[in-house]
């Protein structure tokens, strides 16, 4: 598909002055059809990640690809593509010197397609909300960040639609370069907000009911809790065996005697490693989505309980996969982070 998109795009670019009218139309349609088909493929992949549907039981490709939000996603993305391309064409037209009547007609025509796009985005969004699982529905209604982004998208759809009706459709002459740049930037902003909604509502999963956002399989959590994260996570095991001498016995299992006698700095290093592998996919300590400021005022005992029941504390968080002493190491890391120079 990508190759055909490229071949037709280059054809239109390099043969623009050579094509007959028929060839122009044919190649442009081929380009449009294959571009839309690539949208369908991408929709199948991204929607599967949020709603795995019957794939969880069957592991059948088709159940995964044609999942509950597959069609709503196609409708929404097709609408988004129509809207943003309409706004882009207007940007182009605002700079383009052409016969005034032709220019006005094209502006009106593309603006109408833009409105169709916004309608499709709205319908697709509502359809999507109707079929997503409960944990996503709850997030849409309660998670502050998601609500903010939904508000932004709804506001932009209404504002841009009204602007297109009042401006380019009724008064095409209004369209100026600054206005068209503003409309395109707002449209692109809406797309970004939409992507944030998709990513935000999917948490705590990468693939619903199968893989958590920290790359732990959902059906492995109990096993890891029983055996310990440091026994199960091979890369962590390899890494810690290099920096905490004696932590592992010769058979590769965690040395229980050593755990009883860990120094503060060793506990800190273990906690740091657990943090990077279980929390680091979404959180930093003090940077993006920093965790330490959120833990201010929480005593160590409460923090321990919160980590132990992490998925109960927030529906965007996966369960903590590990033993009690590993939670201790993690809380040690959080507590000592400010004075980490003592352990380096």
């Amino acid at each position, binding site marked *: *598909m*990508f*190759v*055909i998109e*490229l*071949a*037709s795009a*280059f*054809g239109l670019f390099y*043969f623009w002055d*050579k*094509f*007959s009218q028929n*060839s122009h139309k*044919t*190649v442009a349609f*081929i380009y449009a059809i*294959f571009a839309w088909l690539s949208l369908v493929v991408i929709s199948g992949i991204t929607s599967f990640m949020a709603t795995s549907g019957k794939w969880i039981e069957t*592991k*059948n*490709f*088709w159940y995964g690809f044609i999942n509950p939000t597959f069609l709503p996603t196609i409708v929404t993305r097709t609408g988004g593509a129509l809207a943003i391309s309409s706004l882009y064409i207007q940007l182009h037209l605002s700079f383009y010197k052409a016969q005034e009547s032709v220019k006005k007609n094209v502006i009106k025509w593309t603006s109408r397609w833009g409105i169709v796009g916004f309608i499709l985005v709205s319908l697709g969004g509502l359809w999507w909300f109707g079929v997503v699982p409960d944990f996503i529905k709850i997030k849409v209604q309660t998670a502050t960040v998601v609500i903010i982004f939904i508000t932004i998208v709804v506001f932009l759809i209404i504002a841009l639609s009204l602007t297109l009706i009042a401006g380019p459709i009724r008064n095409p002459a209004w369209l100026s370069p600054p206005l068209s740049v503003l409309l395109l930037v707002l449209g692109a902003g809406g797309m970004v907000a939409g992507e944030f909604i998709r990513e935000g509502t999917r948490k705590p999963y990468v693939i619903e009911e199968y893989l958590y956002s920290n790359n732990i*399989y959902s059906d492995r959590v109990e096993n890891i809790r029983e055996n310990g994260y440091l026994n199960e*996570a*091979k*890369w962590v*095991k*390899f*890494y810690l*065996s*290099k*920096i905490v001498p004696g932590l*592992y016995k010769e058979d*590769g299992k965690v040395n229980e005697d050593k755990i009883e006698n860990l120094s503060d700095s060793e506990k800190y290093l273990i906690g*740091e490693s657990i*943090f*990077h592998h279980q929390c*680091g996919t979404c*959180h*930093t*300590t*003090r*940077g*993006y989505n*920093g*965790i330490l400021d959120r833990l201010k005022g929480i005593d160590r005992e409460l923090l321990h309980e919160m980590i132990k029941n992490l998925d109960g504390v927030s529906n965007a968080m996966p369960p903590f996969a590990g033993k009690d002493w590993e939670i201790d190491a993690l809380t040690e890391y959080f507590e000592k*982070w400010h004075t980490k120079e003592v352990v380096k």
Partner: protein
Amino acid sequence: MTPIPSFDPLGLPAPAVVNLVLKVFGFWVHWFFMGMWFSGMLISLILIRLNNETLSITGWRILKTMPVFIAFGVNAGIVPLLFIQVLFPNFFYPSTILQAWFWFTILGFLLVAYYGIYYSIFNFEKNKLLAYGTGWISSFIFLMLGLIFSSEMKLMVSPDSWYKYVSFGPGGTILGIALAISPQSILRYFIVFGLSTVSLSGYILFDNYFIKGETQLKEEVKKLSLGLMILGIIIFGLSALKYLGYINPYLKDFVLWKYLPGVLPVLTLIMAIMFYLKPSKTFSLLIFLGALISLLVNSISRQIVQIKELEPFLKIKHLPLRIQLSPILLFLITLIIGLFVLGYLLKVYFIETRRCRNVLQGS
């Protein structure tokens, strides 16, 4: 103790060998296009500045085709990356995280280099100096990106060394600033560069003798092509001989794939010398094919080495399978339809070009 986590119990969608064949095929197609810009940008810019009209025209003709080569090369490059992610995710993904910032920069640099070439082509008549300078910047970026890829492929097969590259930023993130530039990665870089120059040489002959059909430029193009072929073989040969020292143990059971990657480029060079003495249209096609087959054989050999390098951590035949035929069938049907549409598009372009030529000749 192995640092590699267990493999996804979900299993591969098709037998490992199918994935490997598609990976190698994708890399081979990518390598041809990538080679054209990797070595071709540099060489075309040098040719344009030479005080020789024929070589200048040839350099200019190569430069003008760069946007097409880059677009197809970048797209073809997705194929091996996707299959590497399917086959070796536990190696590929963590190693890209370790050199994340360099990996991210590829996107930005590629955009700059791509637009740079367009700028260079469309502004050569208006502002030669600026256009030429932009072309050089693009070429430099492409040469640098090759190093990042070479480093990544080396890091991927060395999981034992990953812990040395782990470093954390003050905010608690993994810094991702590893760059595994080693003698091996540098040698592989030059192997790729050398063979890319060989395929560029083959392409120049094919373009001038098979496609274009003009006569006045041919004598000097013939010399240029042979010169490039010799240069490419020297760079490839010296690097490959040294590199063989590293990979010898991996290829001890694959004698054919140890020597064939070196023999084929030399055979192509012999054909180029024979062509120089007695040129013909068919021979130009054969040399181009020889260069392409050299790339393919080297891609296969490289794949064998990669599997062997990973063998202490992964036996590829032990990868779990969950074969589902219907998606494979869909893939093949889509591929066939796609090839038909592609053929149709090329037919339209050919007919339209011929129609225009006839109109121009008629007027």
